[in-house]
């Protein structure tokens, strides 16, 4: 197979960047495997327990960038106890001991201690980029270590993490010599920051393209920062509270006029929406607008803002925009590809919410729509069928009706036909989340039509095991399946255990599977870890195989049972 010297093949492989493609390349023959592994720079590990750091290091000695994901997705909704796992420390420790020149670390849903951050900051001379999404376990002390020790830091991006904020001084830890910052996002921090240090940092960072501030950064600081960084492409505003007749506000208007490169705007963590007009000059160029943390911005002020955003491709918004506001989006944002509508009052009386009408309007006005996350009060089959017709290009379709088993309010029927239309029309659909009243029928449709489906989330649906079987038999590309509160039992679970080896993971909670059923899977498939999460510790007192299992999480792995599971997790 080797007609070319290794260097030539390596050069060719340089052009192959997607993880999937590189994985395929490595399977062609031994020689390609060898060349590929030495030239691989970026590795993505979707489940940190599927492989060990030692094996990673052994295979890819040239590793520069590592992405790791820890807890299962349902951990986002408090369905997984805090200390379940997903610790990054062993990874950093192993990498630090090795000769790997790590430059980039991206973590999602992992537990990150200050100790890990400190070790990270001291172990890799060329470390450039730290991205933490939905992580927890660290404080601003850990951030201080990163700031102080990573001399060539380009990116510090903190998205929606639970950080213990010890107030303030971590920003001052960036040395005067640090001038390499390209991206700084600390919007999720709740505490004060040293504003002077922030201004000086921005002043000495000529390559800064992305800056997302937290609530503690007031308007007058924002204005100063914008004057020093007119080259910004992505801006997250902290506090937008001001007196519209003040000098600061006038200066802010001028600052925004100078920022000709801003394409992405978010934040408004605190907003008094009297005068959004200062923002209008940048609205025309925006491709991404995230107002999902700004409940203070609604009604006419919000609609006026949106009417300026004609080039928007991605919009994240709260449901207080209302169906009417979505109508404005439909008329204005013809380039829209992604829409996320979050609930502003998830447990409230449902005053401020959207319905199927808003979604239909957007689907009619925005033909490029391909990604949706929509929390709404209600949905109808007719609306979903219309949406499916208007937008056949959905890749991601996630619908969350706030009342999880609500039928079509017009016909009182389940929403099977509506979702069926979506999967039949959207041939490229990769991710689907269902809600509302649903029978086995919708799963028949999913199994039949959703050929590209990779991730499916199901809650409070189906009548019987048939539902789960339709999906497992039909969706050949399924990688992640997460199910809660459905009547799926052992018969469905055990029908085709080999299938789970082709998937990343399966989560089932509050279903009908029994301890015996789970044990059976574990016995037949040694390449899977079958975890039973039992917070009430009922299993201790009742080891009856017929006992229903509260939470089961199974995933394929090359390294057997993990050693860091807490007491209430049994790995069968």
């Amino acid at each position, binding site marked *: 197979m080797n007609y070319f010297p290794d260097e030539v093949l390596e050069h060719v492989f340089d052009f192959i960047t997607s993880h999937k493609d590189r994985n395929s390349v490595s399977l062609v023959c031994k020689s390609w495997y060898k060349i590929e592994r030495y030239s691989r720079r970026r590795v993505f590990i979707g489940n940190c327990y599927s492989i060990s750091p030692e094996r990673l290091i052994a295979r890819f000695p040239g590793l520069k960038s590592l992405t790791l994901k820890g807890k299962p997705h349902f951990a*986002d*909704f*408090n369905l997984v106890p805090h200390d379940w796992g997903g610790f990054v420390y062993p990874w950093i420790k192993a990498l630090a001991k090795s000769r790997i020149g790590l430059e980039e670390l991206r973590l999602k849903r992992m537990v990150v201690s200050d100790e890990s951050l400190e070790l990270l900051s001291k172990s890799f001379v060329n470390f450039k980029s730290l991205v933490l999404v939905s992580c927890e376990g660290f404080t601003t002390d850990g951030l201080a270590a990163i700031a102080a020790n990573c001399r060539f830091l380009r990116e510090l991006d903190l998205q929606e993490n639970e950080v213990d904020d010890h107030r303030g001084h971590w920003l001052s830890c960036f040395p005067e010599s640090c001038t390499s910052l390209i991206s700084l996002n600390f919007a*999720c921090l709740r505490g004060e920051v040293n504003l002077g240090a922030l201004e000086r940092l921005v002043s000495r960072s000529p390559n800064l393209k992305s800056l997302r501030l937290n609530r503690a950064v007031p308007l007058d600081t924002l204005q100063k920062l914008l004057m020093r960084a007119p080259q910004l492409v992505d801006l997250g505003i902290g506090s937008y509270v001001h007196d519209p007749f003040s000098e600061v506000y006038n200066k802010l208007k001028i600052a925004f006029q100078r920022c000709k490169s801003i394409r992405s705007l978010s934040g408004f963590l605190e907003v008094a929406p009297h005068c959004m007009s200062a923002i209008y000059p940048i609205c025309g160029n925006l491709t991404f607008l995230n107002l999902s*943390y700004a409940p203070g911005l609604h009604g*006419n002020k919000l609609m006026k803002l949106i009417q300026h955003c004609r080039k928007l491709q991605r919009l994240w918004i709260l449901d207080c925009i209302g169906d009417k506001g979505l109508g404005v989006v439909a008329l204005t944002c013809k380039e829209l590809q992604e829409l996320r509508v979050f609930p502003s*009052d998830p447990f409230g009386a449902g005053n*401020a919410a959207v319905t199927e009408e808003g979604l239909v309007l957007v689907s009619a006005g925005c033909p490029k729509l391909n990604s949706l996350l929509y929390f709404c009060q209600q949905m109808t089959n007719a609306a979903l069928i219309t949406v499916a017709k208007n937008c056949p290009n959905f890749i991601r379709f996630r619908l969350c009706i706030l009342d999880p*088993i609500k039928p079509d309010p017009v016909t009182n029927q389940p929403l099977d036909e509506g979702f069926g239309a979506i999967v039949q029309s959207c041939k490229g659909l990769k991710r689907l989340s269902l809600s509302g009243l649903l029978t086995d029928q919708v799963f028949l449709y999913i199994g039949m039509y959703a050929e590209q489906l990779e991730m499916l989330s199901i*809650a409070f649906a189906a009548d019987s095991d048939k539902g789960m079987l339709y999906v497992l038999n039909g969706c050949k590309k399924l990688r992640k399946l997460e199910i809660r509160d459905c009547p799926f039992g052992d018969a469905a679970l055990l029908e085709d255990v080999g299938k789970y080896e082709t998937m990343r993971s399966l989560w089932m909670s509050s279903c009908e599977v029994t301890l015996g059923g789970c044990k059976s899977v574990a016995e037949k498939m040694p390449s899977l870890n079958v975890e039973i999460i039992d917070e009430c510790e009922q299993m201790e007192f009742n080891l009856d195989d017929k006992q229903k299992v509260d939470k089961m999480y199974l995933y394929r792995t090359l390294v057997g049972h993990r050693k860091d599971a807490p007491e209430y997790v049994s790995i069968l």
Partner: protein
Amino acid sequence: MEGCVATELRLGLPGTDNVRNKKRPLQEADEECGANGKSDAQDETAPPAKAQIVGWPPIRSYRKKNIQAKKNDSEGPGIYIKVGMDGAPYLRKIDLKVYSGYPDLLQALENMFKFTIGKYSEREGYKGSDYAPTYEDKDGDWMLVGDDPWELFITSCKRLRIMKGSEARGLGCGV
């Protein structure tokens, strides 16, 4: 009353008697949830119980905490009042504190009850539609919404009523 069984709220599907027995003592929220097989046939027309199911709706806890924090931030407790509209089968409740002024409030009412209100003027009230928003003040009088400054309105408003028809058209015109 047979039709009621089909639309009873429960976690099982209509047509099944599948009430799943969940013995999880720590998850009391599930037991309290109105959709747990203990629904009342007479309740099927009322809005469902908004008891909290663990992990539902599926919002990241970071985002949920943010909503909580924002709610706690707004000074003091909300001002919850009932809103009724002529012809509607049941009343709604709103918190006057979340609105920034009259246009905001009226738009929310339009969304909630699916109607359009006319344009307000001091001279003629709400011109151009069959509806007029009114409120009961501390003295028990029914007043037209919009005459008072907003801050004064929210402290004196006890309940809202959207009047319809000839009654509404009469309001504000030379009264």
